[in-house]
């Protein structure tokens, strides 16, 4: 699997990098579970494609989806340039991207931009018979994610939250049945009227590594924080503060796996 999540940002670190650098050791930490879950889901999704029962020639073998990855493009590529070209409609309709290529499934053609995907058309399904006649990004996205037109009295749950509702009873493990990467999409990825039990957890936080903060400085300022925690010391017995101190300890355990080299020359 490629390191496709590798980010070039100056301020964060890819999930893969986090895992390679030993984040797994922070067992039980929700954030870590979350990061692992992300890679696990992706890895599993790719692995499924190479499973013997998915290879052509074994059509009819029982295949059951164990997880679903929904990639939602907020106003993605035009369907006529990609998955559903209309070559017979001519240039006025197709424009410059009018080339189509046959796929390894007889009778199915896709846009000429996808020669590699054309070789694997037996491994995916295309739905070409659906439209919603709604040309606003937000209203259409709401319709697609919830199955309801906006403006009804209730805020409806997204499809993932509905999945969570039905799968929660049989679901085991600390990772919720429904997670959203790489950031929340507000109403389009939320639980609506189902309530907070079905809220997808927030996407992975930043801050596992504080870029530019050396290990020595990290230690020094943590000591400073303890030294200045006057109220916290005075009220150490309060359960509210004990809970937050525990969460802070776990956060620091997550960062402890990392050291940032001393400031360069």
């Amino acid at each position, binding site marked *: 699997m490629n390191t496709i999540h590798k980010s070039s940002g100056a301020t964060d670190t890819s999930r893969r990098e986090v895992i390679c650098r030993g984040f797994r050791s922070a067992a039980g*930490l929700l954030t870590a579970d979350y990061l692992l879950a992300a890679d696990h889901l992706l890895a599993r999704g790719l692995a499924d494609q190479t499973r013997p029962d998915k290879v052509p020639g074994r059509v009819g073998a029982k295949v059951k989806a164990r997880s679903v990855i929904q990639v939602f493009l907020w106003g993605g590529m035009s369907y006529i340039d990609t998955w559903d070209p209309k070559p017979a409609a001519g240039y006025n309709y197709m424009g410059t991207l009018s080339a189509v290529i046959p796929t390894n499934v007889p009778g199915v053609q896709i846009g000429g931009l996808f020669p590699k995907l054309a070789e694997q058309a037996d491994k995916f399904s295309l739905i070409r018979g659906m439209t919603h006649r709604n040309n606003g990004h937000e209203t259409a996205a709401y319709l697609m994610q919830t199955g309801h037109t906006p403006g009804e009295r209730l805020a409806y749950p997204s499809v993932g939250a509905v999945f969570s509702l039905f799968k929660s009873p049989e679901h085991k493990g600390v990772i919720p049945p429904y997670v959203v990467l790489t950031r929340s999409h*507000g*109403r389009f990825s939320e639980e609506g009227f189902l309530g907070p039990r079905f809220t997808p957890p927030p996407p992975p*936080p930043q801050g596992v590594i504080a870029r530019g903060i050396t290990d020595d400085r990290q230690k020094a300022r943590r000591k400073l924080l303890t030294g200045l925690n006057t*109220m916290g010391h005075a009220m150490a017995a309060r359960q509210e503060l004990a809970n*937050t101190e525990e969460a*802070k300890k776990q956060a620091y355990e997550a960062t402890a796996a990392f050291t940032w080299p001393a400031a360069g020359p």
Partner: protein
Amino acid sequence: MPPARIEPQIAVFPDGTTITLAPNQDPREVFADWLITPRNPWFTRSIVNRVWYWLLGRGIIHEPDDIREDNPPSNSELLAYLEQELVAGGYDLKRFYRLIVSSNTYQLSSMPRFNDPRAEANFASYPLRRLDAEVLIDAINKITGTTDLYTSPIPEPFTYIPADKPAIAIADGSITSPFLTLFGRSARATGISDLFSRIVAVFLTLFGRSARATGMENERNNKPVPAQWLHMLNSSHIQRKLEQGPGLKAIFDSGRRPDEIVNVLYLTVLSRLPTHEERKTVAEYMRSARPRRNAASDIPWALINSPEFLYRH
């Protein structure tokens, strides 16, 4: 085509009474008037309990979403008194808030006085509560002199909340993405990549802001989780505010003596002067920090990460 004749509409209130709405009548106004009549006991009880919950961290009926016959209030005399007061004051919420915040109960210290299990339900001391997501980021922005840009994709065209508008003033629950701005300019205008914007897109969600999909109080989640600490302690979102915020720069570059700088900083972040011990700890950090400018962000970093700042107390 002549405009269709608008017929008067029959509407039914939740208590079963019906009313005829004239075509020029806004049904929301009619409903609001019905809501605040003394013969509607449900609203009075619910709003009294909620205001108390907002101010004192726990409803007289606990949880505030769970008002029913067999979930009695912890203090029914208190609840009845507050209901009477709200009705007597003509549902003036400002007057009602004043009544509560000027009470001895509200003004109790947060230092626990009793070890009795019944203390919490009887409001024996002021409860500790983490600042709500919006209040927290607004307070950090106020101290550092920075802003965040909030946007909503609903409805199109995308909404950009003006930079001088705080997070607590955002009316729309769908606005959940604070994109980073440096000092009022948009991320794009300052040349910061979209990638960087996305990194800080989660603050309000991370700290439990309600999506307002329902009217339930429990949609807001103020439970402390490690990811919140990672953001507060280590994120570049907060670190940048501390290093580059003009608010802090003004304090540290003011030409004041170091001990006066520490006084101003404490007054700005914690609204009090430092204790003798704290003064010594800070002075020692200022002496030993290398490079020295680190102290100018590390000391406010420690103060905004203290429970005294993060918690209402």
